[in-house]
């Protein structure tokens, strides 16, 4: 298991212990931890609803694919440290990384 840190839109910080050997991606981890990430396209880098910014550990992550860069290009609030969580494979290189959620949905009804 590795630890990663996630900040929600309000800035609340939480350390998550996640398995690094199950072939999961960060979007799946966020959903499993009940973050309100839509992930409309299910992980195809086509909707931008799992947009995160990497606050720490960017250099350890694998580079962007073309599909991911294409999508990030269309987002109004993308920054140089922006990634799509669905394109980030959770492995030992992610240990210690800090992620800021950007696309978390605000709707919490009922």
């Amino acid at each position: 298991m590795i630890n990663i840190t996630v900040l929600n839109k309000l800035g609340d910080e939480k350390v998550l212990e996640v398995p690094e050997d199950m072939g999961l991606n960060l979007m799946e981890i966020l959903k499993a931890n009940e973050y309100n990430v839509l992930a409309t396209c299910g992980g195809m880098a086509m909707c931008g609803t799992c947009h995160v910014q990497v606050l720490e550990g960017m250099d350890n992550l694998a580079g962007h694919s073309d599909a991911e860069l294409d999508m990030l290009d269309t987002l109004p609030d993308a920054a140089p440290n922006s990634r799509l969580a669905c394109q980030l494979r959770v492995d030992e290189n992610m240990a210690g990384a800090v992620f800021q959620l950007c696309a978390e949905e605000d709707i919490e009804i009922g």
Partner: protein
Amino acid sequence: MITTDICIIGAGPVGLFSVFEAGLLKMRCHLVDALPQVGGQLSEIYPQKPIYDIPGAPEIKAQELVDNLMKQIAPFAPTFSLGERVETIERQEDKSFIVGTSDNTKIHCKVIAIAGGLGCFEPRKPAIEQLELFEGKGVNYMVKDPELFRDKKIVLAGGGDSALDWTIFLSNVASSVTLVHRGETFRGAPDSAEKVFHLAEAGKINLVLKSNIVKIGGNGKLNEVHIEGADKTITTMETDYLIPLFGLSPKLGPIADWGLNIDKAAISVNTFDYSTNVEGIFAIGDINTYPGKLKLILCGFHESALMAQSAFKHVYPNQRLSFKYTTVNGVNAF
């Protein structure tokens, strides 16, 4: 006023297949979708992606599935209101409903089936101060009628294909066109990107790269945008219109206001027939939730079949439903 048996909100795969299941039971359907075309996220987000878990179709492209569904439901002559968002649902004395859309279309129906997927696709809004204040007063998120911009000063924002395409198109319509893009390169279609750079070199458009619009202003109507460059200096530019083009993102929208039980942006249903807490309103596909819910197209198809069985009781309260296989009975077109 459009009159139908079932008003289906959402023309994605599950909404479309509901027409088939309803048609087998002699119920007519009218579909409403906020997008200008049928197919929902399959057509809007991933038309060329192959899907592998449709029973009987080992590999099928998303758009192909939508096209096939349209073929499959054609015998039941569904009608459509596309590019319109359902805003209101009014219950009538006889328990029927009148559904009202953003274009003021009224649909009278006996049953409502919400197959709204993740909600309505709405334009993604950039974080610009006072943006919402000027919506419809100089800020437009799409180009519906290019003539609106004839001989006007316009500023577009964005770096995707639609930003490039509209910049090229409007350069021949507007009196001045400025494209503001966060990056310095465009990853859209190479042809379009090249054209935009040529237009900028020829002085036909004003290309502002590595910059963001941070604030807009005007007196009741937009007349200026404030653009922040890479060096954080702010430039103010006069304009009649701002067109932010950052794609579409789904929002639950007015669905939240119809008195339905909502759990985490999804509609709670009874798995007996996917009925909601409001009699006569059903919710199927990605928009609903229940214990064990899986957001799969094939699950939505199943839900539509069971929904149709219960909808029959609302549409034909005095008739008994006898279940018939298509292999025995065929498909009897309307």
